[in-house]
């Protein structure tokens, strides 16, 4: 709570304080980390929708961003590594009235959890997946991820990454997602708006949030937190509606950001109900 120095003025409550477990603060995220900003965007989005907080559940997997579920003051679940999406699927199918948000990292969602991601997208499971993409495994000390750029150094690719990273929006698109956006943590307003739009939307929505990990990625790749932010600010190309196939991240140009896809398709719980429990109407 931010209190005014002037006792005559009533104390100002932080606008998101009702959505934060204040008794869990300080959080574990490092100085310069972008996860907190993405988390804030997520809380802002929840607030923006106007949907009562009791109708939300947040599910995280493991890793730095996976701790998100521990700080939000709604029903929240910190599950096993890579399994946030199937946990969320169980929640949604058992109680379709709930709004389910998955908040986790690229390592969690796309390496160990890759299979769950594509299947949830294929089913058009009505959940919103927010991926904090820091291009590495932050919590375990900066190992190579499925999103680490080719040639980038990590603690398990000290001579440079020999592999090709995923283009996450393209993966989501190919698998059947109905809402796809990518912003950086610096584009806080756009990011929050995209998450809010996704929450209001029925269907599988995917928001990639680029976010620096200065401690474990930046250090090895000679990139300070401020350099990453500058890169996002100066190099990012905003191209709403861009085709996901053009969205791979290359060294040559900055990342393409925007709201790429927003289509209507019946969700899995709706189809299931219609086909298997038609009498419920």
């Amino acid at each position, binding site marked *: 709570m931010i209190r005014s120095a002037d006792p005559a003025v009533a104390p100002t409550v932080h606008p998101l304080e009702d959505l934060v477990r204040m008794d869990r603060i300080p959080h574990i995220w490092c100085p310069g980390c972008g996860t907190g900003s993405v988390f804030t965007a997520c809380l802002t989005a929840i607030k923006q929708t106007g949907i009562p907080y009791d109708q939300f559940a947040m599910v995280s997997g493991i890793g730095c961003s996976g701790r998100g579920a521990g700080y939000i003051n709604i*029903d929240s679940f*910190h599950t096993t590594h890579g399994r946030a*999406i199937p946990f969320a699927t169980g929640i949604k199918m058992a109680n379709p009235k709930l709004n389910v948000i998955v908040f986790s990292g690229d390592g969690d969602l796309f390496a160990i959890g890759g299979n769950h991601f594509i299947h949830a997208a294929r089913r058009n499971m009505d959940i919103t997946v927010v991926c904090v993409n820091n291009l590495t495994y932050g919590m375990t000390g900066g190992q190579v991820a499925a999103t680490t750029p080719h040639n980038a150094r990590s603690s398990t690719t000290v001579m440079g990454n020999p592999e090709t990273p995923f283009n996450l929006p393209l993966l989501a698109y190919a698998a059947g997602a109905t809402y796809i956006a990518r912003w950086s943590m610096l584009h806080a307003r756009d990011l929050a708006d995209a998450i809010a739009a996704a929450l209001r939307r029925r269907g599988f929505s995917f928001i990639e949030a680029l976010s620096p990990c200065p401690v474990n990625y930046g250090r090895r790749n000679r990139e300070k937190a401020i350099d990453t932010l500058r890169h996002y600010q100066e190099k990012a190309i905003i191209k709403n509606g861009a085709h996901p196939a053009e969205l791979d991240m290359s060294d040559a140009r900055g990342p393409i950001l925007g709201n790429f896809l927003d289509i209507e398709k019946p969700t899995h719980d709706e189809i299931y109900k219609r086909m298997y429990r038609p009498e419920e109407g």
Partner: protein
Amino acid sequence: MTSRVLTGEHFINGDIACAEGAIAAGCTFFGGYPITPATEVAEHISIRLPRVGGTFIQMEDEIAAMTSVLGGAWTGAKSMTATSGPGFSLMMETIGLAVVTETPCVVVNVQRAGPSTGLPTQGAQADMMQARWGSHGDYEIIAVAPASPQEMFDLTITAFNLSEAYRTPVFIMSDEIVGHMSERVVIPEAGKIRTVSRPRPAGRKDRFRLYRPGPNGVAPMPAIGDGYKIHVTGLTHDEKGYPVMSVETQKEMIERITGKIRNNIDDIVMTESYRLSDADIAVVSYGVSARTSFTAVDEARKRGIRAGMLRLVTVWPFPEKQIRALAQKVKGIITVEINMGQISREVERCAAGRVPTIGVGHHGGAIIPPEAVIDAMEKEVMR
């Protein structure tokens, strides 16, 4: 909607009886992944659940199936999955999460012979130790072992009741033979079926503690959307459910999750005694192997051997007290099971050298013939 409880007499296999037992117990969410010989549980429940207002989903793998079951359980739904050995192995990490987050759920393992792909269409009882210790860390678990399609129905209800009462995963350790065997199954009237639901919290939401235990060591459990703003984590956590990385919190948490089972062992453990009152030699068995063991006991009696049997209906927590008492009474104990000595080691441990104990095992793929048990008794009595 059709009726939840199909009261009447049926001629069905164990897997189908299990699915019906789940529905009768109040199951409304099933997340599954097909695997022989458990697939018929999923197939049958996929047809039946939506007709009683529930939901079935076939997930992309066993890890996802088990994880979806946990998600379902936290919405308040009685949730279940069914699998066999290899799938059970894949579920183990998530089962640990269920244990530590005290999530009620039921897992049916229709066992087949292993290791690895083994004999998918032939039975075994070789996952018994996996059921006990398959996940990482210290914990207690509950497992029951049905010996017939009727018990697949009855013990599935028991499994749900125990899981709800103790907020813990409960395993139904069946096997291919019981799963695929068709027999008469009597389903009672709905009103005659006792079902238990998890205790739900009441009182001030701001003072709520997710893991503050009630009198029997079990904490009331809210559902998502009840307004308690719960946080559930697989990290070591305090009563509030918040992560605390300390030796003291770890101790407190482990003591709570093991204590609620250890301290209620008499309420949980079920055994069945057969011709034991004057027995010299006792057979200990469970599941499908108990069926041949009953025959072996009767046959041995005809041959003048005073044999009796203790059937373990609950296998975990292990019926230690009952085995100790048995070891005071008889001259020898024979454990009969389709593995190379998993439960027989537990029996040996509890007998603690008071009487000789031997195991009659099988490598899997077939039931144990009664003669093998009788042979062992004769050797035991002769010595």
